[in-house]
């Protein structure tokens, strides 16, 4: 009965509290004015943590058939390939070239 796990009410409420707390941290960190490349890094780490919490407890992957988690992980791998290979082009173009 892996697909029919009834998630305890307490888990759902704690998930919500954790998400709200991380949202407050996300906004708080913004007002700290962290220097240039690291502000994005911190923002992405916080957003990824929130997304992981949503996927695990709201979407029930923690209780679910592990194959669904594999599908999600593969989508993220493909996304990284998409971003990575595109940046190999766009980050290393001739700076004298007219770009948008």
């Amino acid at each position, binding site marked *: 009965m892996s*697909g029919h796990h009834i998630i305890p009410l307490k888990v*759902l409420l704690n998930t919500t509290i954790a998400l709200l707390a991380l949202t407050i941290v996300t906004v708080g960190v913004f007002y700290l004015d962290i220097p240039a490349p690291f502000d994005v890094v911190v923002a992405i780490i916080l957003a990824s943590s929130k997304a992981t919490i949503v996927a695990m407890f709201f979407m029930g992957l923690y209780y679910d058939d592990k194959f669904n988690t594999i599908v999600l992980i593969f*989508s993220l791998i493909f996304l990284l390939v998409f*971003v990575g290979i595109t940046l190999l082009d766009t980050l290393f173009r001739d700076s004298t070239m007219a770009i948008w």
Partner: protein
Amino acid sequence: MAQASSINKSRVQHHFMNAEQQFSSSKLGMWLFLFTEIMFFGGLFVAYIIYRSWNPELFTMAATQLDTMLGAVNTVVLIGSSLTIALAIRSAQLNDTKKIFYYLLSTIALATVFLVIKYFEYTAKFDVGILPGAMYTFEGIDHPKANIFFSIYYMMTGLHGLHVLIGIGLMLWLLVRVKAGDYSSEYYTPVEMTGLYWHIVDIIWIFLFPLMYLID
């Protein structure tokens, strides 16, 4: 009891062994759809990354035009709606039809609040000439490519908003079927799948909020 199990049997299509296998197959199908959704929005995130890496100062300047407060409120609204739809699924599992209805209704209400806030954000920008692409006439940002940031902003938040609208449509359809008594702890697959869809819409906003609103 005999009647209940015969209703349950009639839900199982002939190519599945039992309701359990049918449910997990539907769920896998939904996750594969969510895979395509991640790649769909992924294309726009790639556009965002490329233009931000080319014009970092533009993103810093243009983001000051976005209202951090409204973005934060909308984040909280969507997290709340994720909780209410999770509670709707839980009510279905516990066979509490009345509560499925009210939790779905709460989710629709929160989704509507999100869209109303987005409407006020958009119209405030339209009024000063912040429009996508060639229609951009705003003079307040001293950067020749200011329109590019807002083209990406409108495309990403607009597509996300469309997903919210589709989610409201799905939940209205669920309300009708809950009223008709179609769902119980024996069968609630559409409620579960709409929930998965709604959570991915929430996750996309979780990334859009810091990437759009929270750049110095």
